[in-house]
């Protein structure tokens, strides 16, 4: 027991001597906080998240904001909506996709590209004997809209030419100016709200 203690004391004395003398290269096990790899020049070499631009935190209740409608300028048209409608859904969809790709290729800025609700039409024909009408067929008209924020007047004839050349059969193309009413027609009607507003204004 005693020699062990004596050896420990000796070791302690040696250690204290070591601590007393100012040495530049301190042993690593002395202070645990100073980790040597943080001072290395390659520290943080794998970091990438600080490169991505910071997005503001998304609000849960996102009111559908309308993209600003630009007015016509001296050299360009304002916000236009290219509406593709027809009875054959595949043709309509493929045509709208083609128009969207064409805009991307020509450098025309596309604000939005969406589908409008399908319109169902019942075709009723008169019976041969009698005056009753009977349901002949149910036709569905599909609509797709490609909303352009602005269109250069120089690109317009080229764009229209290409679009018309590639128009498939049975598909109707209509290009109009985009208005707020068009945007609001996509939303569900709120009769209660309107009734209340009418009552308050009276």
């Amino acid at each position, binding site marked *: 027991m005693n020699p062990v203690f004596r050896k420990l004391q000796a070791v302690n004395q040696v250690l204290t001597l070591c601590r007393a003398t100012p040495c530049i290269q301190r042993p690593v096990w002395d202070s645990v906080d100073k980790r040597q790899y943080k001072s290395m020049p390659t520290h943080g070499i794998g970091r990438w998240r600080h490169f991505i631009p910071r997005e503001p935190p998304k609000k849960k209740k996102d009111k559908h904001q309308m993209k600003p409608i630009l007015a016509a300028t001296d050299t360009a048209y304002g916000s236009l909506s290219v509406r593709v409608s027809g009875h054959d859904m595949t043709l309509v969809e493929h045509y709208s996709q083609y128009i969207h790709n064409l805009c991307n290729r*020509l450098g025309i800025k596309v604000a939005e590209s969406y589908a409008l*609700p399908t319109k169902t039409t019942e075709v009723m024909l008169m019976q041969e004997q009698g005056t009753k009408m009977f349901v002949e067929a149910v036709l569905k008209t599909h609509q797709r809209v490609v909303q352009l924020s602005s269109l250069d007047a120089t690109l317009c004839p*080229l764009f229209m030419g290409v679009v018309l050349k590639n128009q498939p059969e049975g598909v109707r193309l209509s290009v109009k100016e985009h208005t707020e009413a068009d945007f609001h027609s*996509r939303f569900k009607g709120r009769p*209660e709200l309107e009734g209340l507003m009418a009552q308050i204004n009276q």
Partner: protein
Amino acid sequence: MSSALSRSLCRVLTRHRATISSCRALFLRFRAEPKKKKKVDPRRELVLRERMKKKLKKLEKVPPEFIPVEDLITPAKYLDETRERSAPRLSFEESERRALLLKEWCRYKKNQHMAEVEAVELALEAQREALEELKLESEELYQAALKPDPLLFPFTHEGPAYTPANTKYYAPDGKYNDITKVYTQ
């Protein structure tokens, strides 16, 4: 006091029939106190208005919803797993033929697309050169050429048809009914 007076007056005057209506009016005037009603009515109206405004605020807080598009919703009957159809078994030659045909079609469409892109680029270049020449010629015409055409929109065009319209076609009598489902929030 006033009511008793009015009653005595009435008794005196009831001998004459013509004065009954005037007596009644006198009686009512002295008996009723219409001032109370006037105080309650504006208060009631104000309270009603406030209630309606509160309701309006609550309704306005709810954001409007889009009308659902039927095209983008898969009907339930297609999600039924028992309706699955297994792929047909093809012979080696058939599958080879199909793969080669696909490649042929790819090549054809690619050539078509390349030709179209080239045509578009040529047209753009020609337009740019023409505009440059026009600018050198006259600045006014150049500015007029850059202006957008106001009469162009709205523009509608029907797709081409396989056959021209039949002039002697007699259409049967009938009508179209719009049965689109109307959604309300």
